[in-house]
């Protein structure tokens, strides 16, 4: 599997299929638990694009934080945008030099006859 195939996985689930309300209306202790569960699940969802998320919710904050930390530690894969450099120069051409042009043509193997 190519690196970007692992990475560029947009949500395959429609947003309307997701939990509809993320605003917490429970006591603070429960809210904190739900928040970390939500973060862990949502991160997993964005990362894998997995349409089926394990909903056996473990509300333990430390468990979810540890899981998230583990997911955040996934290493950065190599992605190459451009090939290796092969440097050359683009010569300025404002000064007309017939000799330069002739030698250039000779080096290109262009028949001047």
């Amino acid at each position, binding site marked *: 599997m190519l690196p970007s195939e692992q990475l560029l996985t947009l949500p395959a689930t429609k947003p309307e299929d997701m939990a509809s309300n993320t605003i917490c209306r429970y006591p603070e202790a429960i809210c904190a638990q739900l928040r970390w569960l939500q973060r862990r699940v949502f991160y997993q969802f964005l990362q894998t694009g997995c349409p089926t998320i394990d909903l056996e919710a473990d509300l333990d904050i430390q468990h979810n934080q540890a899981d998230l930390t583990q997911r955040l530690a*996934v290493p950065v894969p190599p992605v190459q945008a451009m090939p290796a450099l*092969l440097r050359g120069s*683009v010569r300025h051409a404002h000064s007309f030099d017939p000799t330069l042009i002739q030698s250039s043509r000779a080096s290109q193997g262009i028949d*001047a006859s």
Partner: protein
Amino acid sequence: MKNLFGHDAFRRVALIRRWIFTAFVLLQTTFGIWGMILVLPYHGSTPIEKAILITFIPLYAFVAAGSWMALFGFYIRRRFKGRGDARSLLTRFSVQLPTVPLVKTAVALPIYHEDVERVFRGLRASIESVRATGHLDAFEFFVLSDSRDPEVWLEERAAWLMLCDELDLHGRLHYRRRRVNLRAKTGNVSDFLRRWGRKFKYFIVFDADSVMSGEAVVTLVRLMECEPKAGMIQTVPRLFNARSAFARMQQFVTHLYGPLFSEGLAALQLNEAVFWGHNAIIRTEAFMAHCGLKSMRGFGLWRGTVLSHDFVEASFIRRAGYEVWLETGIEGSFEESPPSLDDELIRDKRWSKGNLQHVSFIGFERGLATAHRMAFMNGIFAYLASPVWFLFLLFSTIEVAQFAAGDINYFPDARSLYPNWPQWHPQWAIVLVTSTLVTLFLPKLLALFDLLVFDRSRRQGFGSVPRLLQGFLLENLFSILLAPIRMLAHSAYVVQAILNVTVRWAGQNRSSEIGWIQAVVRHAPGMILAVIWSGIALSLNANFFYWTIPISLSLLLAAPITVWLSRFSLGDRWRARGIWCTPPECALGDQVLVDFAAIPLPLLKPEKAPDWLSWTILHPNQARIAAALAAHRTGAAKRASTALADKLLAEGVQSVPKRQAARVLDDADAVMRLHQHAWMAAPEDPWGRSVDQLTRAICTP
């Protein structure tokens, strides 16, 4: 050129053709001048009549040159029965062409703040078409972005990665964004050549709206292999994918009249053609050795970056002895039209300044081919014609005003003892106007004739004959209406260019309609001028007023015409009725266009997701891609990015301007630091809030 580069096989035939062409233009212009002298009451002896003549001569010669060019094209098409000029590369190498092996070629697509979806749709259609030829291995594709707005370049990058994935082109389809946009498009291409040019024998330049068929791309490479003297081969891009009425009209024009004009131009230029900046192939080493453009060292507009670089590059590569060909026979080369007149005029503003810069190359650049100096002159006068026409109208009005005021001078020449009676010859005025109209419209009629009588296979692409004729008449009506509007705008641009008003480098609008307010504001000066001019004309002489109507009416109607023609609904309606149909619309176009229209492009980011910068930092995969593509900074750069990351960590992404904040994406460590911090942040932290907002945005229906 002969002394330096040996025998030029096309020199003789080129000279014969160009002299014949020049003779016809001069002959017709002489008749035109003679007619004008007869029309003028004092036969050109007063200062104002001299001024009228001075402005009339280049205008008439320019119109005559365009007309004879098309007539020449008609002759070439009929002489070679539509197979193309016998001297063209395609005709000369047609036999061996299919067996010529391909060599490594780059396809470079420089972009700057373009519609990302459109750019990658076109690129994908072209790549898939090249793949269908079975020669994809010979090509590598480079998207060269100069975009500065992170909302644009982050989207470009996501689109590039998606295309790599979908076409399995990792390592063959590349994306590079310049951090420093020196010298706009020329700088971008030069930067590419300096880094990777030596890997490729040839490179093909695309514009943001280009689409080329695989067959066209492969043919270009093979022609270069067949003719080692060829430095550039330019194709003739036809317009496609037009929706607004204006764009569809332009599309109709290029498909109907284009073949005649381009054939004539190619036949006259032969191996000294020009480069139009895109949809062309270039010999890399020759270009790198001879076409680097320095900043100009003159004054005013002749100082700084060369804006219209393409003509100059063609003239430089020709000066080095390489040939430049315009190949009219290569099908499958396409581009898009601006959707409205206003968008076309915005583009013309840049082009007018660029063309006027060429004055310095005509006069002060040694060793250029005469054909290229003429091409520079043609380009310059394409814009200079507008203020000259404006002056012609002004002087004509003054002449009429003098007579209306009864200011008749019987001794215009102070040294003459004999009176000079003013004479009016309305019949000569009618003859002159008629000859001008014939000169203007004959090429169009010939193109129509050529299509109807000799090119029946292509004719089917224009719909039924009655609809074709209806479209032809409508196009001519609108071209008459639009000409004065263009004239006034170009006149203003020429004055602004001479005053060296800065031209903004911006991405083009390729897909939006024009609003009423925008149109009225833009065309208000012309509308006011038309009212004043018509008022003066009416007060001077009723007959003169009638002569001014075609110009003043179109200036008065400029805003409604612009708005109306920019409407997509009108374009769609007329398309449904079969008006301005063109081969690509009638399923006679290249397969690449069919593919272009059918390409499904999924959303790069959910609609409710935050802006691209936040999305990139927060999204697990986007952040890692950003980190993978970023540099590992050291030294001062590292300290700067760390300081920026610290500020963003503490105060959130909104705490600094977006372009500045986006610099954090240049440092791999900083990106991942921000990403990890955001997801572990407390709910009251700015980043914690951002994560919660992202969750709500994505998950709330």
